[in-house]
Structure formats: C-alpha cells, structure tokens
C-alpha cells in the first residue's frame, strides 16, 4: 500500500487543531506557534501533493479507498484532479498567513477565569476548518463530501460568532448582538442549503445504489445508469442549491456581507477565500459530472443569476460605507464571474474559473488582510473615518493599493489572467453574457479606486495622524501574497498546466465542445 498522502495532508491540521486546543490557558503564545507550525507542515504536504501529481496522468490521482459504512454504501474514497490540487495548494498556502495575520485577534481582553481559552480555541478552529476544507477537495465519495461540507459549518460558526471584530462601530453589547446575528445567519443559510442537498444525496443513493463519484459518473457515461430527466433535474437542483448558497450566488448571498463584516479580517479571508471555494469547486466536480444533462439544461438560468451577481455585487460594493462589507460585495461579484466561467461550458471559461478561484483567494486575502491591519489601527470599519493614510503609513497604503488593483484585475496581476479567460470563454458561446459581465470590470475599477481615494489620499484626518505603518509580522503576511499575485500574473503556466487537463475531463463529461477550435490561451 502506498503512502496515504492525501489523508495525511488533511490529518495534520486536524491533529494540530486538537493539540492547539489542549495547550494550557496560560501558554497562549505557545498555542500560536504550534498552530503556525502545523499550518506550515500542511503547506509542505500540500506542496508534496502538487509535486507528486502528474498533470498528464490519470484523472484522479493519489487515490485512496477504504470501506467505511457498508450499510450506506459509503466508502472513504479520496483522489485529486488538477482542480483539487490547485485548491488544496491555495488553502494550505493561505492558512499560515491567516494565522499570522490573526496573531493578536483572539487575545483575551482581560484575564477572565483561567479555564476560558479563546486564543487556543481560535487557532484550533482555524486548523479544523483547514482540515475539513482540504479533505472536501479530496473526497470522491459523495457522502464523505457531504459530511465535510456540513461539518465545516460548525467551526466556522464559532469563528464568526465567537471572535468578532474588535473595531466595531457602536457599543460592545451591540457588537456582540450583531456578531451572533451574523453567525446564526451564516449557519442557517448554509445548513438549509446543506439539508436540501441531503435530500438530493439520499435521492442519488436511491437511484444509483452507491456514493462513489467515479463509479456513478462512469455508469452514467456508458449508459448503465439511466436517470429519468425529471429525477436528474431535481437532484441537480438539490446539489446546486447547496453550492449556490455556499458560493454564494445571487439571491442566496445575503449572509456573506454580514459574516464578513462582523468576523475578524483573517476569518473573513477564511470564509471568502477558502470555505466558499468549496461551493464553486463542488459545482465543477459534482454538478457537472453527476448530472451533465441537467447542468446543460440549467445553464441559461444559472448564467443569468451569475450575471446578476456580477453586476449587483459590484453596484452594492460601490455604495458601501464599510470597508469589509465593500470587499464582501466585491467577492459576490467575483463569485459571479467564477460561476459564469463554469457554466459557460467552454474550456477557456472553466480553466478561467478554476484560476479565478485561486487568484481570487490570493487577491482577496491580500486586500482583506491589509484592510484588517488598517481597521485594527484606527478602530473603525467606516470608510469616512479615514483619509490621507498614504502620507502617514505609505507601505500600508501601497500594499492596499496593490491588493485593490488585483481585485479590479489589473493586467500583470494574477486575477487579470483568469478574468480574461472567463470573459473570452463566455463570449465565445454567449456573446451578450460576455458583454454584460464586462460591466463588472468597470464597476470594480470604480469601487476599488474610490475606496483607495477616500481612505488613503486627500488631507490627513486628525485621528489617522498617529497610525503606525506595517509591522514586520504584517509585512511577512502581505509581501509573499503580493509576490505571488505578480508571479501568477506574469507566468500562470504552472497553474494552467495542472488545471487544463482536469478541465478537459469535465468538458467531456458534459459532452461539450468549444464553439471554436480550442485556443490554448494563457499558455
């Protein structure tokens, strides 16, 4: 038996979570370093996964398969394709930065009873989320994926509700109430989505008799498993609903601004850059593979919803007064692009969407974390409370600008490549949709630059005058992210090499060919 690399990659952060949680209350700093160590160990393992993965090889590699619950036909089956590898790498890469950025976010305000250990809990929960997210990118058993999809809500819920943003406008009690409102909203939206998916999962079992993604997809492809058209459509809708809540797609998006606004910046990054990716990833892996015909059937409606997300998210971002909510609405707009790319059903669109998932993760992390540093200095999330920061803290302002430019997909930075691919891929099949989506870019320029202008330029506000510039810890977080944005913007080949074969498989699942001869774009 070969070394179970995928299991170990997911198990290491889980073990780290348990150990971190067990650190005594007084040894807070030790818990932080322990968590950082385990997140770095996971990064090494994720790198090993990337190296061991052969882009030209089998569709699913590094597979593992063990019996788990025979009665339900459930197996513990893991395997990664290029899309999974890219997202595992993204997750493992971002978590150390999330931990570093949140270094002081969970320090207890005053020494309460010695048994209350918020710091240990905070970092343990982050690692737990990482473990579950990584395993969900690896799962090729529908049941296993479902369990993780639901279970990861619980640690996320405690992260949002338990460790709110200190810099909340208004009284403390009010902040606590809003925070628990946001956490409950997050949980209920996602739980309802998940439970509807549960009904579809059970339905799939009744139809197919097992949960193995590969087996079901194969049986479907060679005609052994017939599904009535209406059955397939209902099941597709059940799955898609859950993923659309998670992703989030308009009109199921309303939990995201609350959750991202109330959570601390690192947790907001965890939500939008890591956990939400499971939703879009699952659309590619489960919706398209299991229900190809229904996916094609639903495409027009989904494209319309994605376009609404793009434009609506961007418009609302323009109107926000709160920095974090602005970034949240920008993310909704970007998720619109990702979903548009997936359902454009062209290979450029889908590679673009996959690249977009990775690039959006990095660029949002950069922007959100710098915003978090800024907010923690001034103690306010309102844009109007800032002004002229670039004169006081030029490095902070500069990194904020780069993060913002990445968000608006400036050529030369990584998101440009993916956004361009999505637009080209969409235009090839749905010209009107491609044109409408382009307005999202224009609006992105508007909200990002206006945000920068209002907070960083202009006369220096009195309260801002004494803001310190970025500290070494914060620079350690932000510099590598920016370097990565530039590198992937100039040379995306390593990523596209991994992703493209997987996209070709998905395209053949849905029996779609590109409208024109395949353009090996971005190679």
């Amino acid at each position: 038996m070969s070394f179970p690399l995928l299991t170990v990659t997911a198990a290491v952060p889980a073990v780290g979570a348990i150990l971190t949680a067990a650190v005594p209350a007084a040894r807070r700093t030790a818990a932080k370093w322990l968590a950082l160590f385990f997140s770095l160990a996971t990064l090494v393992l994720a790198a090993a996964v990337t190296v061991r993965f052969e882009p030209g090889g089998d569709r699913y590699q590094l597979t593992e398969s063990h019996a788990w619950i025979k009665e339900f036909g459930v197996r513990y089956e893991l395997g990664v394709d290029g899309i999974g590898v890219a997202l595992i790498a993204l997750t493992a890469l971002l978590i150390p930065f999330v931990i570093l950025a949140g270094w002081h976010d969970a320090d207890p305000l005053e020494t309460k009873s010695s048994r209350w250990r918020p710091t240990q809990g905070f970092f343990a929960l982050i690692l737990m989320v990482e473990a579950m997210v990584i395993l969900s990118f690896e799962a090729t058993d529908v049941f296993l994926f479902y369990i993780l999809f639901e279970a990861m809500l619980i640690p996320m819920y405690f992260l949002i509700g338990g460790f709110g943003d200190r810099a909340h406008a208004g009284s403390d009690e009010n902040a606590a109430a809003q925070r628990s409102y946001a956490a409950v909203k997050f949980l209920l939206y996602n739980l309802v989505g998940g439970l509807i998916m549960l009904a579809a999962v059970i339905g799939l079992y009744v139809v197919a008799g097992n949960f193995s993604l590969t087996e079901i997809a194969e049986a479907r492809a060679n005609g052994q498993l017939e599904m009535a058209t209406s059955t397939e459509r209902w099941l597709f809708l059940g799955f898609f609903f859950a993923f659309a809540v998670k992703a989030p797609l308009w009109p199921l998006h309303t939990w995201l601004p609350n959750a991202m606004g109330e959570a601390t910046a690192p947790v907001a990054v965890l939500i939008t850059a890591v956990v939400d990716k499971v939703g879009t990833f699952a659309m590619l892996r489960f919706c398209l593979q299991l229900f190809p015909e229904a996916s094609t059937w639903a495409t027009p409606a989904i494209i319309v919803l994605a376009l609404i997300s793009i434009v609506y998210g961007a418009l609302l971002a323009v109107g926000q007064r709160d920095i974090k909510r602005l970034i949240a609405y920008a993310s909704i707009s970007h998720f619109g692009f990702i979903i548009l790319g997936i359902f454009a059903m062209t290979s450029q669109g889908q590679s673009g969407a996959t690249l977009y998932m990775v690039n959006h993760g990095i660029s949002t992390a950069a922007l959100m974390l710098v915003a978090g540093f800024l907010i923690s200095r001034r103690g306010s999330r309102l844009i109007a409370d800032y002004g002229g920061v670039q004169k006081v803290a030029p490095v902070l302002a500069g990194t904020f600008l780069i993060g913002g430019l990445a968000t608006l997909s400036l050529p030369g930075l990584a998101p440009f490549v993916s956004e361009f691919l999505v637009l080209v891929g969409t235009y090839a099949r749905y010209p009107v949709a491609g044109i409408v989506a382009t307005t999202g870019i224009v609006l992105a320029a508007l909200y990002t630059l206006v945000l920068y202008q209002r907070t960083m330029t202009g006369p220096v506000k009195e309260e801002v005058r004494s803001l310190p510039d970025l500290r070494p810890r914060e620079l350690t977080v932000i510099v590598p992210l920016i370097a990565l944005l530039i590198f992937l913007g100039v040379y995306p080949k390593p990523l596209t090499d991994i992703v493209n074969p997987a996209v070709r498989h998905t395209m053949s699942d849905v029996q779609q060919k590109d409208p024109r001869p395949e353009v090996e774009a971005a190679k």
Partner: protein
Amino acid sequence: MSATAVHSLWTTAAEPIGKITAPKIEYAQLAPVLIVVGAAVLSVLVEALVPRRGRYHTQVFLTVVALAAGFAAVVGLAAGGYGSTKAQIAAMGAIAVDGPALFLQGTILLASIVAVFTFAERRLDPAHHGHRVDSFAAEAAAVPGSEQEKAAVKAGFTTTEVFPLVLFAVAGMLVFPAANDLLTLFIALEVFSLPLYVLCAVARRKRMMSQEAAVKYFLLGAFSSAFLLFGIALLYGYAGSVSYARIADVVDGNVTAMDPALAATMGNDALLLIGFAMVLMGLLFKVGAVPFHMWTPDVYQGAPTPVTGFMAAATKVAAFGAMLRLLYVVLPGLTWDWRPVMWAVAIVTMLGGAIVAITQTDIKRLLAYSSIAHAGFLLAGVIAATPDGVSSVLFYLGAYSFVTIGAFAVVTLVRDAGGEATHLSKWAGLGRRSPLVAAVFAVFLLAFAGIPLTSGFAGKFAVFKAAAEGGAGGLVVVGVLSSAVAAFFYIRVIVLMFFSEPKVDGPTVAVPSPLTMTTIGVGVAVTLVLGLAPQYFLDLAGQASVFVR
C-alpha cells in the same frame, strides 16, 4: 337461535382436573425480563427490611447489577442465535424472542443503567445536616409546603423507593416491544406506565409542578390506555383472538373456520380499522406524536430531570418497538390503509415539534418538543415498511437514547439557589463560565440537530434513506425542512451559551460525582462513536431487523 345453542357458547363439558397441561415457559429465553422483575421484587423487600443506613447502597448496587445481568442475558441470547436463526415465540405465544426484541431490550437495559446513575447522584444539592440528598422528594407522602415536609427536608431525609419503581418500569418496557399478543401488550404498557406516573411526582424541588405533571401524565395516560384497551376489544371481535399471528392470518384471509360466537363480527373490516386505529393511538400517545403529544412538554418539565431523561429515552424505545411489531407483524396486509394516516401523523409531528420548539424558553420544554420532532423522524423510518426501515429505526433509537440521557444529565448540573436553572435565559454565557460542560451540551445539541460526525446524523440519514427507498420521498423532504427549522433552536441555545455575556447572578455548574460523569461520558462517547464509525451498530441493527411471526 335456540336456548341450548346459546348456552353452549359459555359452557363446555368439564374435563378431569388432572388433564390440565401446565403452560410451557421458556425460562432461558425470558431471562432478561425475569431477572429484572425478580430484582424489582427483591428491591421492594430491601426497602422493607434493610436498615435505612445501608439502603441506598444496597438499592443502587442491586439495580445496576440486575440491569447489567439482564443485558448480559440479552447478549447471551443474541449470541446463541435467538435474534436470527432460533428466533421463536415463547411463553405460549405471549412473548416473541427475535432480533428486534433483543436489540430493543439491550438498548433499553443499557440506557437504563446509564440513567440509573443519574438517579443515584447525591452530590448536586448542598448537604442537609450532613446528609447528601438526591433529586427526589424527602418524603413523597408529605403535602407540599406542609410542616411535615419542611421537617423532612430539614432533617435531610432521602428515600430510595425510586429504585424498585425504575426496575418495574424497565421490566414493563422489556416486555412491551416483545409482546406478541394484545393482552401482553396492554399489561406491559401498564406495568411500565404506573411506576413512571409515580416517578414523575417525586421531585425534591418544585413539588407542585412535579405533582401536576404526574397528574396530567396519569390522566392522559389512562385515557390512552382506555383507547388501547377498547381497540384491543374491537380487534378481538374482528379476529377472535388477541394473538398477533392469528390476527395477521385473519387480515390476510387465511382463516376460514370461524368461531361461532363471533360469527357476526369476525372479518368485519370496520372493526379492524377502528380497533387498529385505537390501538395505534395508544402507542402514538406513548411516543409523543402529534396530535397525541400534549402531555410531553408539561411532563418533561415537571418530572425530576433524571426521570425525564430515563423516560424520554427508554419509553420511546419501548413504544416504537411495540409499534414496529404491530405494524410489521400484525398488519402488513393493511400497509396501504395505515400508510396515508401515518404519513399525515409523521408530517405534523416533524413540523409541529420543530416549529413549536422555537418559542420555548425552558430548556426541558425545549428538549420535550425536540423529542416530539424526533418521534416524527422515527415515524418516517417506520413508514418505510421495509427491513431497512426497521433497522434504521432500531439504530436511531439506540443513538437517540444516549444523546437524550446525556443531555438531561447535563441539565441536572446547571443549578442556582432554587435547584436546577432550567430557564433558558439563565444559560447565557455558560460557555465562558464552564467551557467543558457547555461544550458537552453543544455536542448533544448538534447530535439532536443531526450535524454530520455525530450519531444524530447517522441515525437521521439511515431513517431518511430507508424512507426514500420505501417510496416516501415526500416525507424525506418534509423531514429535511423540519430539520432546518429544528436546527435553528438548537443553534439558539449554543449562541446563548457561547456568545452571550454571562449574567452576574447566573447559575453555577455543580461538580457531580463520578456517577453523573459516567452518564455524560458514556453519552458523549456513544454520540461520537456512532457518528464516526456507525458500521458495527448498523450491522447489528441490520441483522436484528427480522420479526418472528
């Protein structure tokens, strides 16, 4: 009809006395029940004869040993193949010894052992005059608020009658799911109900509420027993027998020879349907299904919390067992008649329990409504009418009982000056004050909500899967939706515990003895094991899903 013909209906030629054959009783197969009944009788004697000083320890020891021995007997029978190949009808057709019976008896016995630990807990209340006291009335016969009662409380009296009562109740519950004729069913029902009525009335604190709960439970229980009994009479009129096998034969039309005395009624479908509906009502009352659930919140709230936990878990197991046997053994031929009715009951039970629970402000009432919603989920599995349906219900019952007992055991720990602090507002900020207790309770709540990696999810999945395969896809959708509603109020308690600031005069968490710790520990362990690796137990339930007829 001539006078002699009528006369011959109730007289018969006398046989010589010596020719009465003794009934054949399979003592070995009935050992689990007999051990518990024997211990119950012994326990009464202990109450009468053992000096007060040693009574508590004797009773606890006797009860736990008897229940454990009963469980060992169940395991022995199952290992001997009585659950599968050697399944048979024992005691002249009165008791079935088969897979479902043994599985449920094992579940009831294990759950009871764990629950009895909370009965025996004496560390939670402050000691009175050096006497450690438990959750039960100092002197149950004293009028609440009277001088006599005050004196008894002051003197730190404790009583141990609860232990024989529990043993009798358990004995009845063991027979209930194994009963193979309607009379045994009724007797078993009364044997476990009467001790429960008394147990509900003996809370040490809030005695008026406890007695009110007992009276409500007794009156409504008596009412439902009457329905059950009337139903039995009608079914006898229909089939000419109270035996399950015989009724099933008549339903299936395999019986042609009619009892002359019943010629006018036998085979009359009206009798069958009405009688069956009434018997079913009696059982639905015991499981707390809507619209027969009205007693549940009051009784759960008023009864002493250890009793609530025991009752919520064990009664549900026993009653669902009896219902399964009735529907699967007696009435498979009537599936198309009872299914629509049960569909409706299951839907209103799931939705009703979940929706009404949202407005509750008392943790015990909240758990009561949650138990109603769970009864609805279980009904979805019952309705599947497949072997998978049986095994999923068996598994769900096992998983659910330990979560329930554990959750109520946690409720006994959170106390203020007036005893247990059951009002939800008092639980605010518990997570900051006692992270461990709050975390354990959160695990139970997540299991109730059916979050993956807990036993609640495995059970819910099994039941819904069976229902979907049995053609009840609509029920699955309703079940999923009401799970979402239910999740809301479980989550609300978690929010309260972890995200609210603790109140200044909030309750304290009592440090329990190893007894309650064991109960809670077992509850958590079972919840997680059945969530992560349910394979073995699903297997067991799968093997135990065939009824003997």
